Every structure is written in C-alpha cells, then in structure tokens.
C-alpha cells in the first residue's frame, strides 16, 4: 500500500516540527521513488475526515503528526484495523497504531548546557510555544542542563500562549525574546514552532544567541544560532515508511532519545564558529554521560513537575 502523512494544522512548512516530518517524507521519496500522499487539514473535522479518506483508499502506513490528532487517530484506527497508523508525540494503545515519542528533555538538557557555556551574563532564556506539558518538558530539561553547567545561572522562561496559535506567532515570539534580553539573557532557546522565527530574528537583531528546535534551524539566522535541539521527526517518519516497506513495522510505543539518535544537538557550518573546541568536547562528554545513564534528566511529563 502507498504511504501517507497527515500534518497538523500548522502545515508542513512551519519551519519546525511539521517541516521535520516533511523532510523525512522527502528523503524517503527521493530514495525510493515512492510518493507519499500528503494531507493538510484546515479544521478539526477535516483531520478525522482526511484520515478516514486515506484509510478508506487503503493508504498504509499513515503517519499522523502531533498530539492534536490523537483522538481522531484513535477513532479511525478502530474503524480500520487493517491500516497501520503511526502517531508522533502521543501514545495510543491500539494493535494497529505505532506511537512515537521522544525524550525531548535529554536533548534540551544538552542545549541548556551549551547555552550556559556560551552565556556571558549567566542568564539565559526559554520561549515556549503553547503552554502544555510537552513544552514544559523542553523547558525543564533545558533548565537542568543550564544549572548543570552553571548552578547559579538564571533561566527566564516564558510561554507564548495557551492556544494552538502560540506555535505560530513570531511577533509575540520576538517581543518575548526582547523582553528576556532586556532582563539580561544573552542566549535564548525557543521551543515554539513558527513562533521561534520571531525569537531568532530578535536575537539576530539584538546581536544575541538563539537555539533552534525540532529541525536543524541553524541556517535560519546563521551566525547567531548557537545550535538547534533536533528532534528527529524526519527520522521517525522515514523509519516508519522504511519499516512498513520491509515489513518490520510494529505497533506499540517507540521511544527515541539521545541513545537512539532521536534527539541531539546540531553542529554544522552555520554555527561552527560559535562553538569552541572546549565547548564541543564538554558537550560530547555530557552527551555520553546521559546516554550512559550517569546523568539522569528529569522528565517533566512523568509527574508534571520540574523537581529534579
């Protein structure tokens, strides 16, 4: 069967989460020549409708991007037990659904540590998108990383809003970043989807550093992007299609952390000049410790608190 993907309402060009999946899709298509059917719903009703339409036409596996789709996927997956679904960022317990979740806290810990090393003011910022546990998980991991390097550092945290629009509000992102800069922060991590664009822009405009999220966003404002906390949704999508093609697709929960290469920090030409050899070796060291379990990063979502 042909594979398919349903993006969430931010659309596949959100420069971040959905775009990551899109990159995976592209990669798969260019490698195998198999077209992946894409669908971008406009409203809640269309999410389910789109899933259903794809399922009816026999597309499988269908990758659903984002926790917003969990209830729709659950309904449709029940109605089409022979179709395989993979949902990213949410867990659904059905025999034909694969749930892919990430250890965002581990990746965030890494970039937090890096932020602390790069900061001259010992104050760093975090701009979250929508105020949901998932985003708090980023923030909590980040904070732990910062404190691990500089225990006395200040971590300013702001959420953009409490609705889906918070992932798509660069104006507000830029205002939030500017307010954090004015309070002394000189590195800011945006885990805010499209809102991040405004954060990076503000950093660029004010000559401060920013950290990207989800995709490798280092190229967006080369020179002031310290790094990106990559969450390899592209890999997740790519692997789903690959495994479905070779028959190794399995339902159940797939957890992708540092060890699995599901999350990481990004180093490329765009930020090479910002990362000293020292910093690099330090980070690789910390990275190793997390993978080895020497550093335990607290997962906000395990108890909905950030006590570590």
């Amino acid at each position, binding site marked *: 069967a042909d594979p398919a993907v349903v993006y969430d309402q931010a659309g596949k060009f959100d420069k971040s989460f959905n775009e990551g999946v899109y990159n995976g899709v592209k990669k798969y298509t260019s490698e195998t020549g198999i077209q992946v059917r894409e669908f971008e719903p406009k409203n809640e009703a269309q999410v389910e409708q789109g899933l259903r339409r794809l399922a009816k036409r026999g597309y499988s596996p269908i990758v659903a991007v984002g*926790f917003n789709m969990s209830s729709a996927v659950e309904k449709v997956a029940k109605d089409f037990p022979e179709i395989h679904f993979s949902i990213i960022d949410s867990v659904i317990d059905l025999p034909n659904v694969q749930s892919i979740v990430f250890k965002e806290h581990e990746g965030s810990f890494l970039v937090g540590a890096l932020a602390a090393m790069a900061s001259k003011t010992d104050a760093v910022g975090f701009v979250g998108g929508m105020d949901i*546990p998932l985003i708090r998980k980023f923030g909590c991991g980040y904070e732990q990383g910062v404190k691990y390097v500089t225990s006395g550092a200040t971590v300013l945290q702001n959420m953009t809003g409490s*609705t889906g629009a918070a992932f798509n509000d660069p104006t507000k992102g830029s205002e939030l970043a500017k307010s954090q800069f004015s309070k002394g922060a000189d590195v800011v991590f945006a885990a805010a989807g499209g809102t991040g664009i405004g954060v990076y822009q503000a950093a660029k405009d004010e000559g401060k550093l920013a950290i990207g999220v989800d995709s490798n966003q280092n190229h967006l404002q080369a020179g002031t992007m310290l790094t990106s906390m990559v969450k390899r949704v592209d890999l997740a999508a790519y692997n789903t299609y690959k495994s479905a093609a070779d028959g190794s697709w399995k339902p159940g929960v797939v957890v992708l952390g540092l060890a699995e290469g599901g999350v990481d920090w990004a180093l490329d030409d765009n930020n090479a000049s910002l990362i000293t050899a020292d910093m690099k070796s330090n980070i690789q060291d910390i990275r190793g410790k997390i993978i080895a379990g020497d550093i335990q990063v607290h997962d906000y979502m395990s108890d909905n608190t950030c006590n570590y």
Partner: protein
Amino acid sequence: MSEAKVPAWVNIALIPFLNILLAFIVSGLVILAIGENPIEAAGYLVYGAFGYDEGIGYTLYYATNLIFTGLAVSVAFKGGLFNIGGEGQAYIGGLGVGLVCLALDHTMPLYIIAPLAIIGAAVFGAAWAYIPAYLQARRGSHIVITTIMFNFIASSLMVYLIVNWLKEDGRMAPNSRTFEENAWLPYLHELLSPLGIDIGDSPLNLAFIIALICCVFVWGLIWHTRWGYQLRTLGTNPTAARYAGIDTAKVTIWAMLISGGLAGFVGINEIMGVNHNLLLNFTAGYGFAGIAVSLMGRNHPIGIVLAAILFGALYQGGAELAFEIPTITPEIVVVIQGLVILFSGALEHMFKDRIEGFFIRRAVA
C-alpha cells in the same frame, strides 16, 4: 414604482444566481491564475460534495452550522439589525453545551442532557447577544462595533475558561475531557442504520434535524406571530413601528436574543454532535459565513437552507479539492465566500438596478 413590473423569480432566483455565478467566475480566474484547471477543480468540488454518501453527509454537517448562523443573521436583519457577532455567540453557546454535558454526563441519560444542552446553547448564545442588544436599544451604541468587540471578548474568555478551568490536568491540547457517550448527540448514520438505511460514515448528526426545526420555527416566528410582525415592521419602517405603538427597544433586544440563541446552536452540532469535548475555535468562521448565507438566502429560511447547503458543499468539496489538487488550498472556499458576500451584498445594486431596469423597460415597451 419599479417592483410590480419585475417578475418575482428575478429577485429570488435570477439575481442570486448571477451573483454567485460571478463569484464563481472570479474564483475560477483565481484557480486559473495559480495554474490549475477550473473545470477540473469544479468537477472535484461537486463530486466531493455530492458524489457519494459520506460526502453528502459532510456537506450537510457543515450546512448545519451555517443554517444556524444564517438564521441568526437573518432574524436580526429582519429587525434592521446587523449582527456580526454570530461567531462569538456561537462560541459562547458551545460553552453552554459543554458545561451541561460536563456536569451531567456521568449521571444523566441523553434524553435529559440533550434538551438541557439545547437550552444551554440558546441561553448562553442569547446572553452573549444581550449586552450589545441592550446597548443598542437603550444607549444607542452601534451594534456592529459592539458585536465585533464581543467576538474578541468571547474568544479570550473561552481561552481563559478552557485553559484554566476546563482542561484536564496533564492533557496537551486545550480541550475539556471527552464527554461520556451518553452526552453524545447520535449520528444520523447510527440512527438510520437500524432502519437499513446506509448513509455513510459522516459527522452528520441530530443537530441537522434541529437546524431544520429551527428553520420552521423562524419561519413561523417571523411570518406568523405578532412578534414577527412587529419585528418586520421595525426592520422595514421604524417610523411606522413607532406609529403602531411597537416598543422598538424591546423588539430590538428580543431579536438579538433570538439571533444569539440560534447562533449558539452551532455548539450543539460541534460540541455535542461531533467533537464531544469543549475545545477552542470550533466556530471556525461559521459566524461570519452566516452573513453570506443569509444574504444569499434572501433572509428566508428556505433560501438559507439552500444557501447553507451550497456553502456546506463548498466547504466539503473544497476540502476534497484540496485533497486531490494539493496546490489548491481549502482557502479557495474562503475566497469564494468573500466574493459571494461582495457581489450579493455590497454590490447588490450593480446587477439589481440594471436587471430590474431591463424588466421595467421591457414591461413598458
């Protein structure tokens, strides 16, 4: 002078048809401009909306919302009031539905919850219309501006309530918990399948029937009650209304209450019929689309049903179209909607004067 010589079908059929035709032609040009074939696109659109059971179900599901908001706009309009607050009233109406369902779904059966939810929708929607109505009637505040403001206030209020009070702890999306199944309005396909009728799996639910009942209700109310008589008098000739001893402020307020209540019923369809939880932005512009529906439908329930189905078809067909031709976004439907409002509302005199002139000249000659 002019009217008697113009046949009735010109006003109720020909002119709306030309308006929508022009809207479609311009939209066709847009599609052409982005390098797609408008004819092919129209084919997908029509097939998606009417070509198969499920598509029809979706069309009617969208139409349900539009019937509610279209009726809402038209009731106010009959009284000479322009209610562009349908969006906010629908939103708050949904809050009423959601609160009833959340409060009772553990303890009560559907046949108790449903009527209470309907009342909840009407009362909350009406309450949201009350303040602009009161301010218009008693203090002369322009209802258009106040209803716009109330749309924004509704939207902030709902975010506040849902995020801070109604959201389940630990849940990602800003939704309330999902209602128990006994607070779900039955889907029509579920109701009909025991009768051996298969209409495909779509979100079309009992709210559609409620919408049709509302049409009859509005029709009776406007054309067959004293109150409707007073409303129409006020809407067409306020001086005559005062001459007739009609309490214009009271009629104004009631017109808006009914209008708001009708808009609130969108919540029945969306919250109780389809989403089964209280969520953000479920109104998705239906309140504004209701303006187009009521303009197209010439403010008459039958016209509104037809216009709502037309727009419902555009929504559903548009989604289908976007699915089949990814370069065409579903927003093309929004463009068509806007063009319909432009041609049948703002530019109504452009065609009307000319066509009526033509018929008058023909009648004279």
